[in-house]
């Protein structure tokens, strides 16, 4: 599936929720469920410090596709990470570089990606793209 396919799938899933409560409960459950990152990668090198919550990101390249794992100390942040990782992971670096995150607006979570929110998510997306750029250079 392309990044756009995955994002459309997520938009479909969220369209079933009737109110904020269901949306948030789903995100919280995503945050709880996912084994997001190997403990050994939860290092200071991989940390993105938001003012409010911390985010860890790790990446590696397998068969020309980038695999991301990540984590956060706040569960709602973790739920959004789960959604973002689902769209960006297992994709070719070039696709990740070109992808956008506009779908977040459509599923009613826009405020979490505001640069002033200080939860580390905006920096995380930048970091995902940086990894993709680095891997793209390797592939050339």
């Amino acid at each position: 599936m392309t990044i756009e396919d995955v994002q459309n799938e997520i938009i479909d899933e969220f369209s079933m929720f009737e109110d904020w409560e269901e949306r948030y409960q789903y995100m919280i459950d995503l945050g709880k469920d996912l084994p997001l990152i190997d403990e050994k990668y939860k290092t200071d090198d991989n940390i993105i410090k938001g003012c409010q919550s911390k985010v860890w990101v790790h990446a590696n390249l397998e068969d020309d596709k980038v695999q991301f794992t990540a984590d956060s100390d706040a569960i709602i942040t973790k739920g959004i990470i789960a959604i973002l990782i689902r769209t960006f992971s297992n994709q070719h670096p070039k696709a990740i570089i070109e992808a956008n995150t506009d779908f977040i607006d459509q599923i009613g979570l826009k405020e979490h990606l505001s640069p002033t929110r200080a939860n580390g998510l905006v920096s995380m997306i930048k970091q995902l793209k940086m990894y993709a750029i680095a891997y793209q250079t390797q592939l050339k």
Partner: protein
Amino acid sequence: MLNVQDIRKDFPILNRKVNGKPLIYFDNAATSQTPQQVIDVIVSYYSNYNANIHRGVHSLSQEATDAYEKARITIQKHFNAKEAHEIIYTSGTTHGINLVANGFSSLLKKGDEIIVSALEHHSNIVPWQMLCERTGAVLKVIPMNEDGELILADFDALLNEATKLVFVNHISNALGTINPIEYIIDRAHSVGAAVLVDGAQSCPHLKPDVQALDVDFYVCSAHKICGPTGVGMLYGKEEWLKKLPPYQGGGEMIAEVSFEKTTYAGLPHKFEAGTPNICGGIAFAAALDYMNAIGFENIAAYENELLSYATERLLQIDDLKIFGTSEEKTSVISFNVGTIHPYDIGTILDKMGVAVRTGHHCAQPIMDFFKIPGTIRASFMFYNTKAEIDAFVVALKKAIMMLS
């Protein structure tokens, strides 16, 4: 007694909805809301007599100058300063602290000691660290106990002949502890040290008398006291303000200028370079008038009632821990629930129209002391109600249920 339903009518913002729910505003320690009486003063200033002050010969300038200087006298009376020129308008608490810290750069030498408390806001830590870097003075810290109270015996032990300055907040923004500043001022003076008290959190709840306290410097912001943002005041004893060099150069702060030499204006203008926040100063005084009309004794009594009620209600929730349990505290409750991240609770509460603060509250050393990433902080003002606290508790329980 205070009639909260009447008071709430003065605050238009309290009628709005957030995320479809009636706003419950419990982030007062960050900024307070503005009553219509103060909004009217702001509108009237820009509608009727907006002009630059002190230098104009025309009528508008005179009216604006008169109002601005009259406001200074209102502020002077409120804080019971001896002289109006001991009140310096600032852009807020942080500006006032930096003004004093900068001034002391030329008065301190290597080996001098500065004492701050463990309960400080970053704005009352960083300027002193910068001052120490510039002068070679040493920064010492008054530690606190598990209740969030300063350990006064340790403070006594820190004081010596080398102590030149002591900086402490009147009330902690993160925990709400009321510090024993009378004792601290008295002891600091016994070794000849000057004391600056950060009143950002105290001025909304009590009326400091700077002469009775015998404090050397006292700073606060208008926006925490129902006034506008971007304005505040520094009180300094005349003898100290005369000793400190000017902070910023510019218009207004000079007596005579030539390229060879400039002589500075007298107090308070020496510290008020450039066009000030004229409207802000006037509205600041209007806010003090508003609060004084209600009466600080009434405000304190009512807010204590809210604090006790909220504390009691919150402690009924399983695994809820309050940080800052001093007997002497204002209407601030900093807490966590189990291992739930404060950010998660704050986010869900916002969805239900409840505004609280989450995070380290610009007081990371306090969070490090308790070994937590932050807290949820609910802070109440005299326009909040028990019914709002009830609704907050319901919202909080729901957030906990969703997150557990």
